[in-house]
């Protein structure tokens, strides 16, 4: 649409600014017209987004507390507002800005940023398209480039937030690597803890550039691990396990 739509675009920008700004911008209200009604539109937009986030990120909302969660929401709208055309996608949009924001808040428990990332991953994986990708697949082989299920997320976090806390005790800090995945026949995502080598390997597979052999060599080199018989035995067990679970679908056809 060219210059002929300038006035329409100006109205659209005014409405978007009105809905996203931390405080009601009076100039935008004047531009739009009826200040009472356009203030109502602002509240309807914000309430709808906020309500969905609180449902999807229930534990993070609870652990952050109402005030901090609201600050993260205001920050998100003002600095990195939702861009997904899919309403379920607003959770991921929010998590990308709110997780780092909440990690900087001194009045928020340190695990909350991780918890928010984890809940957003579980939310996404729960409904991601799990059908085989359009890419033609071949059986898994060490010379092939592996393909992971779409319904997979790999996370590296500083707190074991995938475990429920008992009695409200704080999480102990300690690196944790997770695979969040859902099989096509399942309704809910499952979470597995990964060791550093398996995590790096799956990350390498996810990038889709290396063959299995190359990925193993890179991972072993980076982790300073010898590729000896015990390593290979363990590797085969892990790979068979992830193929069985449907995380690894096969290899890309050459």
């Amino acid at each position: 649409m060219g210059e002929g739509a300038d006035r329409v675009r100006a109205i659209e920008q005014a409405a978007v600014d009105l809905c996203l700004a931390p405080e009601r911008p009076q100039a935008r209200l004047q531009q739009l017209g009826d200040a009472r009604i356009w203030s109502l539109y602002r509240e309807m937009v914000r309430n709808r987004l906020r309500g969905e986030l609180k449902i999807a990120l229930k534990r993070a909302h609870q652990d952050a507390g109402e005030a901090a969660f609201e600050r993260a929401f205001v920050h998100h709208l003002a600095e990195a507002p939702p861009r997904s055309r899919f309403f379920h996608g607003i959770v991921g949009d929010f998590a990308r800005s709110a997780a780092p924001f909440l990690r900087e808040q001194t009045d928020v428990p340190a695990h909350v940023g991780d918890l928010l990332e984890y809940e957003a991953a579980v939310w996404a994986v729960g409904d991601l398209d799990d059908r085989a990708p359009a890419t033609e697949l071949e059986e898994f082989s060490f010379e092939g480039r592996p393909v992971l299920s779409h319904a997979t997320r790999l996370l590296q976090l500083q707190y074991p937030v995938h475990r429920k806390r008992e009695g409200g005790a704080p999480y102990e800090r300690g690196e944790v690597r997770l695979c969040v995945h859902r099989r096509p026949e399942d309704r809910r995502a499952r979470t597995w803890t990964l060791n550093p080598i398996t995590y790096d390997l799956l990350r390498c597979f996810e990038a889709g550039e290396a063959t299995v052999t190359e990925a193993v060599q890179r991972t072993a080199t980076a982790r300073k691990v010898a590729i000896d018989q015990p390593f290979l035995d363990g590797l085969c067990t892990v790979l068979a396990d992830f193929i069985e679970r449907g995380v690894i679908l096969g290899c890309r056809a050459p």
Partner: protein
Amino acid sequence: MAETRKVDGIGIGLRYAMAERTLASDVPEIRWLEIHPENYVQRGGRFRHVLERARERFPLVTHGLTMGFGAVDRPEDSYVKPLRDFLHENAIPWHSEHLCFSGDGGVMLHDLLPVPFTRESVGVAVARIREARDRLELPIALENISYYADAGPAEMPEIDFLLEVLEQADCKLLLDVNNVFVNSQNHGFDPRAYMDRIPVERVVQIHVAGHQVRDDSLIIDTHGEPMRDEVYELLDFTLRRTGPVPVLLERDQNFPPFEELVAEVKRLDRIYREATAAAGAEGDGARGAA
């Protein structure tokens, strides 16, 4: 590729919260389902499971939420192409969207915001509708929205704006009867006079719903309340003009026991039969139906 199925009589919106009851029910008056494609495109798990069961039992129609035809921004291919594939995979006979905008510059607010009722805005909407028809390769139906205030200075009444867009874009109309009623109360016009100006040959589908009357008398189109008598009456009036156009009961929140929804469907079905018989239309003439 599935076969396109006939859409007529009364339908309801397939909403996840009521999906199990809807799909397990045996209510002959529920003839078809409407889905929001944004809930199903490129999704798996429980949503695909529900969709597969739904299309086994019912004809489906899609109603989009985020490609408002009043938006200056052209929808990106990453949204339109999967949507097109989805509509064709599911043999959707027409796709509807709102005469509104929902964002700007890539930001999505996920609400239906009114466009300015201006000639410039007509041009935007006409271009968007034509593009959508070409890109989706399907008939497009435009829905009139509830609006609570003008968006900047208006050059014409909403009905003139709607008619101008319909005419220039040469598209179908999803006539939301509840929205006409809500707007008539909030903006002070006669809803029947509004309906008299609707070109019935363009009406391919009708929406009805409940709304909320606030303490300050403003009416909000919530889709979260039972339908009011006045909207049933306006539907009856409308169907006597349009003849047998499929009618969709929208309920998107504050879900009642399923039996209450079925009671509303049965009342709608009685109105549909009486009004369309009175209109002289016999049986299967639903406009735009497959």
